[in-house]
C-alpha cells in the first residue's frame, strides 16, 4: 500500500520544526519512521503534514554532560547500542536497545522516536523510567524538562503537546552498575510480551541499590519500586532475589491478549524480574 498524500517539510533547526508543528494543520513528526511508516502505509493514519526532523543536526549524537549522558532524540538505535559512553555509564540502555526489532530497523529507528511513540510493548520506556531519565522538550514557549515517570501518560500517549518536540534525553550515569534487559517474546522480531529492565549496584555481595522497570505490564512503563526496596541490603543470591521479585507484579495492570492473559503476564513479570536482577548482579 501507498500512504495517502501529505505536505512534507524538512526543517533544519528545532525552532523551525516547532513552528511547523504549531502552524501546519494535522502535522505529524517523522523521526526514524520505523513505527510511523507501517501506519501510514496501511492508511491507519493519514496526516496532512509530515515534519521530517531527520535533517536537524542538533538532535543527533550522545554527549557526556557531567553526571548524566545526553542522548539526542534522533540518534539511531544502532549508534546508541554501539556508543562507548552509553556502554560505560548506561549499560542497560545499550542492552535494551540491542533487542529492539532487527538490525535494519535499528539503523533507522531512533532513541527519541521510540520513547515518544510510547508503545507499552516498546523496550526503551521501561529503561528510561527505571533509570530516572529526563526528557527535554521544545515547544513554542521554549524548552522544558519532564521526568520519565511523568512523560508516559498512556498507550501511545505522552506529555508531549502537539506542537512540541522531544529534543534529547538525559540519562543519569550508572557507572559501575550491573545491568540486564530480560525480554520475553515468541519470535525474535516480536514486541515484548513482558520484559524487565534491571540495574543494580553491588556493595560486596549485597545489593546496595536497584532499579527495575517493567515493559508491557500496563498502559505505561512501570517502575517496580516494591522490588527495588526489597532488594536493597539483601545478598544477590537466587533465594533473596526470588523473594523480592515476587513483588514485581504489584500494582500492575497488564492486558490480556493472544500472547497471554493478565495472570500469565504477572507471573512472567516475577520470573523475568528474578532473572534480570540476577543477571544484572552477575549471579544469574
Amino acid at each position, binding site marked *: 500500500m501507498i500512504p495517502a498524500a501529505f505536505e512534507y517539510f524538512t526543517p533544519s533547526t528545532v525552532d523551525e520544526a516547532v513552528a511547523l508543528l504549531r502552524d501546519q494543520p494535522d502535522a505529524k513528526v517523522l523521526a526514524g519512521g520505523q513505527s510511523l511508516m507501517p501506519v501510514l502505509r*496501511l492508511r491507519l493514519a493519514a496526516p496532512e503534514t509530515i515534519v521530517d526532523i531527520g535533517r536537524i543536526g542538533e538532535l543527533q549524537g550522545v554527549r557526556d554532560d557531567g553526571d548524566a549522558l545526553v542522548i539526542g532524540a534522533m540518534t539511531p538505535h544502532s549508534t546508541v547500542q554501539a556508543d562507548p559512553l552509553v556502554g560505560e555509564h548506561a549499560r542497560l540502555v545499550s542492552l535494551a536497545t540491542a533487542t529492539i526489532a532487527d538490525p535494519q530497523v535499528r539503523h533507522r529507528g531512533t532513541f527519541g522516536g521510540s520513547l515518544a511513540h510510547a508503545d507499552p510493548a516498546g523496550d526503551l520506556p521501561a529503561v528510561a523510567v527505571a533509570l530516572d531519565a529526563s526528557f527535554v522538550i521544545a515547544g513554542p514557549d521554549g524548552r522544558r524538562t519532564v521526568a520519565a515517570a511523568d512523560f508516559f501518560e498512556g498507550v501511545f500517549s505522552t506529555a508531549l503537546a502537539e506542537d512540541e518536540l522531544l529534543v534529547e534525553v538525559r540519562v543519569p550515569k550508572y557507572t559501575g552498575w550491573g545491568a540486564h534487559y530480560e525480554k520475553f517474546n*515468541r*519470535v525474535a522480531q516480536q514486541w515484548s510480551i513482558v520484559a524487565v529492565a534491571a540495574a543494580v549496584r553491588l556493595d560486596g555481595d549485597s545489593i546496595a541499590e536497584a532499579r527495575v522497570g517493567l515493559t508491557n505490564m500496563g498502559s505505561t512503563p512501570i517502575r517496580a519500586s516494591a522490588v527495588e526496596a526489597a532488594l536493597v541490603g539483601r545478598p544477590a543470591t537466587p533465594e533473596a532475589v526470588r523473594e523480592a521479585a515476587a513483588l514485581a507484579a504489584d500494582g500492575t495492570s497488564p492486558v490480556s491478549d493472544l*500472547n497471554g492473559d493478565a495472570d500469565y503476564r504477572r507471573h512472567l513479570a516475577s520470573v523475568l524480574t528474578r532473572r534480570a536482577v540476577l543477571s544484572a548482579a552477575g549471579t544469574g
Partner: protein
Amino acid sequence: MTTTEARPTAEVGNPRRRKEDARLVTGRTRWTDNIVLPGMLHLAMVRSPFAHARITAIDTEAARAATGVIAVLTGADIADEQGALPNAWAIVPEQKAPVHPSMAVDHVAFAGEIVAMVVARNAAEANDAADLIDVDYEELPPVLDLRQAATDSSLAHPDLGTNVSAVWSFDSASAGTGGDVEAAITAARDGGILIEKEIRQQRLIPAFMEPRSIVVDPTPEQMTVWSSTQVPHFVKIFIALVLGIPESKIRVIAPDVGGGFGGKLQFTPEEVLTVIAARRTGKPCKYSESRSESLMAAHHGRDQWQKLTLAATNDGDVTGLKVELIADMGAYLGLVTSAIPLLGAFMYNGIYKFPSYHLKCTNVFTNKTWTDAYRGAGRPEATFAIERLMDELAAKVGADALAIRERNWIKHEEFPFATVAGLKYDSGNYEAATAKARELFRYDELRAEQLKRRESGDPVQLGIGVSTYTEMCGLAPSRWLGSMGYVGGGWEHASIRMLPTGKVEVITGTSPHGQGHETAWSQIVADRLGVGFDDIEVLHGDTQVAPRGLDTYGSRSLAVGGMAVLAAADRVIEKAKPIAAQLLEANVDDLEFSGGRYGVRGTESGMTMAELAFAVFQGHKLDGSAEGCLDADATLDPEDFSFPHGTHLCAVEVDTETGATSIRSYVSVDDVGVVVNPMIVEGQVHGGLAQGIAQALFEEAVHDESGTLVSGSFVEYLVPSSADLPSFTTARTETPSTTNQLGVKGVGEAGTIASTPAVVNAIVDAVRHLGVSDVPMPCTPYRVWKALQEGAQS
C-alpha cells in the same frame, strides 16, 4: 533394496548447483510485479471489513471523479460478466456450495471479500480513489466456529439453507479393506486400551513471500495474462470457462514466482477481475496485492477439528482407528477446497497395519476466508493425529515411543502393502530410517538426560518427540482422481527439442516456483541423452511455450513431470535410431545407444546426438523412410502414488517457569526414493521442517468475535525467522519407488508433514510427568504454562 550409495550415473544423484540462481541472486528477476507495459493501468480493491453482511448501497461517485481514475466497478456493474469461480472437486455428487463471485454483488461472506475496484493511472491514485468509495452494509451474524457451523444454528450463506457442504465417509469393513472399527472399540473398552482425543488443527496462512500479482495485456488477438501462480495451465482453462474467452486466445505466463506452498494453487477473484478490467478498458492492467490483503484474502489452510478414537490391546497392538472430522471450508469452495480433508483421509493409518478404520468427514462453511491447499494438504492433519495418538498409546502401555511404533508398522519385507484405507504402498523401510535417525539423534543418551532432569526437578525439562510418517506423493493417477470426483486429470507432459547446434530444449508442463526444475530436469535429460548439463535449457510456465501441462503441487512434479521428461527423452532416442541407421549405413539391429551416441556394435562407427541433430537439420542424407525430426513429446499418467516416509526425532527444552519451548536438536531421516539432486532435496526438507515447526509453535490465523482477522500482518502472524529456528540434522535412506521408471518419490511436503507432531510430541513428553497430556497448537509459552498449571491442579 535400501541403499545410501551414490548413483552410478553422471548427473542423477549429483548435487548440481542450480541454474535458476543466476538471475535470482543478481536481482535480474522476472516477478509479475516487475512488468511494466505502455499505457498500463493499476487496480485497487475495496474489501469488506465485515465477515457477514448484506451490501445495501455503494456510492462510487467521489471515486469516479477522483484524479487519474479510469473506471470504478462494483459487483452490480459486472454481475453478468464475472461468472462464478470454480470448484473442481465434488467429493460427493450432492456436494453443496454457494455461488462464488469474484466480486460480491449483494452479500459478503468473509472479511476481505472484494466489493468494488478502481482502475486508475497509477497505484497511488487507485488507492486514493478506493478510499473514497462508500459502502453501506447491513451486518449479519457471522458463523465463525466450525463445530457450531455443523449444527446449522446460524448460516454462513442463508440462501444455501445449510452450512454443511458435504459428508464423506470411509469404512474399512464396507470397503473390504479391513474389519469393523466399532467391534474393535467395543473389544478395547472391555479389555484393552481405548484412547479418545480431540485435536484442533489451527487455521494457517501459506504466506508465500511474493504477494500475488497479475498483469493482463488485452489485444484483439490474445489475452496475455502474467500471474504469480503455481498453475498457469489451470488459469488459462478457467479464464476461458468463466469469462467466455476462447481458450485459443488466452496465454498465461507464470514468470518467476516467489513461493506458493499450495497458496498459489488457485484460480483467484483477482485474476478474473484484472482480466475484466483489461477487457473493459482495452488497456494493460496490473493488480498487486499488499501483504495485508494477501494474509486476509488469499486462501488459508488446515482448520479442522478431529475427534479420534484409537483401540488397542493392552500390549499396544492397534486394533482400530475411528476418525470424525469437521473441516472448515471458509466462506466458499476454491479449486480443491472440499478435497483437502480427503487427501488426508487415506493417510490416518500412517505407516501402520491397522485391522480396522473408519472416517467420517463433514465439510462446513463459515464466514472466514476460504481454505484450500497448504503444504501437505490434508496429510499433515492426518499424520499429526496418528503420531500424537501413537505417543499417547506408548504412554498408556508404558512403552517407548519408538518401540510402540515398531510393533505396529509395516515391515520392510511386507511391501507392496495394501492398507486399511485402500491404498497400495509401493515400498519402504521404516526399520532402516528409524535406526539411522536413532543413531544420529543419540536417542538413548537423550533419554538418560531426560530422566536425570526429571529426577532433579530441573525447571527446564527435556522432551523427545517422535514422528514416523508416510505420505502419498505424485498426485495423481487420472483414473483415481476421476473416481474421487475431481474434474481434471493427473498426467503431466514434456517435450524435447533437439536443436541443430547440439543444444537441447526441454519443455515441461510443471510450473516451478522455487523447486529447481530447471536444474533437476536438466540432470535427468543429460543422463538419458548423454548431452551436457549446460547444453540443456528447461522452459516452463508459459502456456504458449509449454501448452500441455498440469503444473506443480502435491509433490507431483518429479514423480509425474520428471518422468514425463524421461519418457520424452526415451522417445527422442527411439526416433533417432532409424535415422542413425540410415546415416551410418547400418542395420537398425546393430545399433546401440550409450553415452549419448548411437554406435554400430563391434565397430568404431557412430554418431552423437548432436551430430544426429545437425544431420536432421540439414536433411541432406535422409532417405525419407523415417521422419526427419528428433523432437519428441510424452504424456505420462502415473500408474500409482509413491509413498516416501521417514523418521523424525525432536528434542525440546521446555522452561516450566515461562512455558517457553526451544528446540535443542532435530534429526530427520527421510526416504524419498531415488534422489536426482540431493542438494535440492535437502533444501526442500529444511523448508518443510520450518513450516511444520511453525504450525507447532508459532503460526495461527486468529479471528475476533466479529470475524475480523486479528493476525492480519506479519506483526501478529508469526512466520519464524532464522533466529527462531534451530539447525537441522538431515539424512536419507533410499528405497526406490516401484511406480515409476527412476524410482523417485517426492519430497516437497515431507518435512512439513513430519515435523509438526515431532515437536508437539516432544513438548508433551517433556512435561507429561507434570500432569500434561496435551497442548493445543500453536504451543505458545502461554498455552504450555497454562497446561502446566492445569496439570499441577489435577
